[in-house]
């Protein structure tokens, strides 16, 4: 996968978001073994400590889990993945609605536009 970082946010939180996105969108499939921190850090071109912290945060959120000897894996819990996917979708929707409101669209008009587009 391609890693792109913005300038105005901590690298740590961008890593969390990008990996979360990779998991909910299926780039990282459930139960998949993640590469070692060193390899993943090299691939993303980031500091290994920063990546380590991002993975720990994802572990805390239940999106990845580690097995003491085997390394880290993407969760197999479909519920957790769905919840995250939904949360991300809601975030996108909120931003979208916010932008549309600024353009002066009412809720009904937005729905109509969306149906037209589809």
């Amino acid at each position, binding site marked *: 996968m391609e890693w792109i*970082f913005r*300038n*105005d*946010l*901590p*690298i*740590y*939180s961008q890593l969390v978001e990008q990996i979360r996105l990779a998991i909910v969108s299926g780039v990282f499939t459930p139960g998949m073994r993640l590469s070692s921190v*060193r*390899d993943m*850090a*090299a691939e*993303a*071109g*980031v*500091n*290994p*400590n*920063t990546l380590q912290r991002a993975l720990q945060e994802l572990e805390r959120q239940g999106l990845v889990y580690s097995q003491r000897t085997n390394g880290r894996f993407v969760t197999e819990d479909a519920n957790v993945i769905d919840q995250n996917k939904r949360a991300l979708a809601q975030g996108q929707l909120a931003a979208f609605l916010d932008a549309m409101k600024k353009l002066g669209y009412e809720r009904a008009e937005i729905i109509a536009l969306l149906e037209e587009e589809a």
Partner: protein
Amino acid sequence: MPILECRELSKRFGRTTALDRVSLSIEPGRVIGLLGPNGSGKTTLIKLANGLLTPSEGEILIDGEAPGPHSKAIVSYLSDKEYLPEWMTPKQLMDFFQDFYADFDRARAEEMLARLGLDPAQKVKQMSKGTREKVQLILVMSRRAKLYLLDEPIGGVDPATRDYILDTIIRNYNPEAAVVISTHLIADVEPVLDEVLFIQNGQILLQSSVDSIREEKGMSVDQYFREVFRC
């Protein structure tokens, strides 16, 4: 225990003060950017850590000791100068490093030479400036040192080599070793760093983690650096 510690460290050359009561400490497992404009004291600090200069006041400790044979055995230093004897070949230089540094990993050096397409039998004298820099870097990065002091490692190299160097630093990562990178090309190294030290006129302006600068200032270290050192 910090791997590198400065206490009220000053260095004067005649009447000019190159370092002015610098106190700082660097823990193992960190990758640190030493950032500052030209002439700010970066190279002086690194030379003091290598025992190539002696402090005017204060002290500098590597692994708890003043620079000497013990510290030199655990510090791997990339100078901003070309310092390889011209009559030697990479093969002879590897023999030399293997002789003197117990932590030199020859297999790794040979692999890096091959990866960068360098001839182990070519004399340094016949190499281009860029090739010499690559050989120096390979020798320095092939040691399993406790402290890497890299003075402008990506200054003069092409983008492909620069990426290779940064990749090597990441893959070389060891929780017991610290890496100090002095540079003015901040944007390139920023994602690789844990912490940055801003240095100006021989004084440390700031020691902070990259992400806390981004968090607090809402901008990259590179952008923040430009703001702080705007002229």
